[in-house]
């Protein structure tokens, strides 16, 4: 590499004795040239040549320090934000494993376990989630105003959290959990570290994906009133979503998928109703519902 540089340099001066530089530059060039030719064999002079070249050549000397310094600052800044991101990712991974636990316990509703028992178990993890979110908001507090710079790192985990909380809330009350209620459950404060509305809405869409399976399994287990309730809820939810003007983004895609959930539930409802099961199942369904609450 050094010899390559040397060759270029020397060929430049030997073959091209008339440089194309401005007067001032020629004078500095010449003095350098003379000094280097006089000490041709000394490796030191090559290294000085090399270093001036590496530092931006003869043209940038006054400003190259400033330039170097700026890029050094950039590197520090980016390293710091990289560290911050790693810490965020660590918390997000923990959130992810907690949501897995919750999801696994919630899945028992498909096996006709009593709702109260299932929810109890899932709820025990909410405290852990709350703690994790407070850690996350502490990290974000270190870089005020940059919530959305790092948002992508906990976005999908949060969407899952919302969907689980919404499913639990629905199993318990039959209602949709609201954005502010989710914030409350997770101990978030809108001013400092709030829940992004998009994340909330996407989470709700995820929750709707869970309902067709729930309906099918409930009917199999003999709760014939369940399709009616779920259909009503999902129809309302779908109607509510239609009030939103969505962009062509992920949420829009998820919302478009919701109609398939709706159709599936409708089909189950239809199957049950056409066979007259809902009519005589109504009372037992009511009873079950009462027993659950």
């Amino acid at each position: 590499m050094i010899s390559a540089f040397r060759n270029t340099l020397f060929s430049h001066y030997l073959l091209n004795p008339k440089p194309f530089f401005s007067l001032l530059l020629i004078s500095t060039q010449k003095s350098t040239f003379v000094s280097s030719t006089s000490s041709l064999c000394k490796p030191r002079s090559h290294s000085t040549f090399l270093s001036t070249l590496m530092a931006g050549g003869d043209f940038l000397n006054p400003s190259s320090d400033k330039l170097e310094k700026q890029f050094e600052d950039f590197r520090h800044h980016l390293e710091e934000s990289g560290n911050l991101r790693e810490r965020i990712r660590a918390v997000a991974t923990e959130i992810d494993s907690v949501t897995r636990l919750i999801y696994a316990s919630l899945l028992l509703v498909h096996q006709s376990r009593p709702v109260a028992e299932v929810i109890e178990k899932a709820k025990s993890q909410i405290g852990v989630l709350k703690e994790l979110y407070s850690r996350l908001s502490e990290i974000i507090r270190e870089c005020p105003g940059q919530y959305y710079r790092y948002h992508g790192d906990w976005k999908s985990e949060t969407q899952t959290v919302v969907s689980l909380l919404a499913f639990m809330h629905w199993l318990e009350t039959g209602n949709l959990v609201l954005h502010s209620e989710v914030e409350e459950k997770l101990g978030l404060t809108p001013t400092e570290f709030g829940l992004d509305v998009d994340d909330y809405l996407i989470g709700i869409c995820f929750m709707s994906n869970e309902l067709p399976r729930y309906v099918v399994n409930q009917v199999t287990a003999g709760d014939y009133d369940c399709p009616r309730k779920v259909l009503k809820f999902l129809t309302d939810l779908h109607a509510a979503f239609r009030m939103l003007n969505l962009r062509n983004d992920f949420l829009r895609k998820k919302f478009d998928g919701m109609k398939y959930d709706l159709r599936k539930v409708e089909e189950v409802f239809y199957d049950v109703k056409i066979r007259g099961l809902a009519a005589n199942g109504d009372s037992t369904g009511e009873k079950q519902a009462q027993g659950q609450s």
Partner: protein
Amino acid sequence: MLLYASKLCFIVMASKPQRIRHLVGATWQSAMKKARTMSTETHTESSMKDGFSKYADYLNNLNDKRERVVKASRDITMNSKKVIFQVHRMSKQNKEEVLDKAVKDLTAVTDQYLSRLIKELQGTDFWKLRRAYSPGVQEYVEAATLCNFCKTGTLLTLDEMNATLIPLSDPSVEPLQINILDYILGLADLTGELMRLAIGRISEGELDFAEKICSFVREIYRNLTLIAPEMDDSSDMKQKMETMLQSVMKIENACFSVHVRGSEYIPLLGPADTSYPLLGMPDIE
């Protein structure tokens, strides 16, 4: 009973094809009906409806704002491009004049279009809407650094650039500051423009200027290699780094070939003739 069941069946089947639309249309109507019978469900629905009208407002406002920011960004891009083209119009004779106009145009971009972006952002959502304005800001960084380099031969730093933006912001809100990422991405694009500029200079025989560009671009590339992997969206940057290396090498190769060939002609031209050291051709003009 049987009759009832078959009738019901008929109704359900008949309505099947347009079921979704039917059901959705009937939602609020059925909600009203239920209101008399079940107070809890009404409560649910109205709170759901309230909630969603709030989300709808929020989304509408955000989308409108994003749309305005995108528009402002597009204007910045367009006009910054014009500035860059203006810089490329320079030749040996009219350098000062052309650059002065470019700087003037750039100031106009700052005052008219960048200030509009600042107004639309209103001191908020700098990171949230970054995707919406990032292309414009990158182009602006490119234009500003290009002008500055041609004028002074140095790199316009982010701090210097941001200092010019502060007066544009309303003092009551947080001023828009170009973020590091957009600045670096803009610098990466700058190399492409400098490559064009260098080739243009070489063909006009301004080898000194071309070499100046060459070492400047090398320096930027070298510094960015350290930074690129640390960027937030490093995949984008990785691609830019490759393009950048291509540009650097193009300049180097152009300098090389002119250097090699130019040297062959110099003895013929003689030391007195300084205007055509590269081409060794008589002046056409």
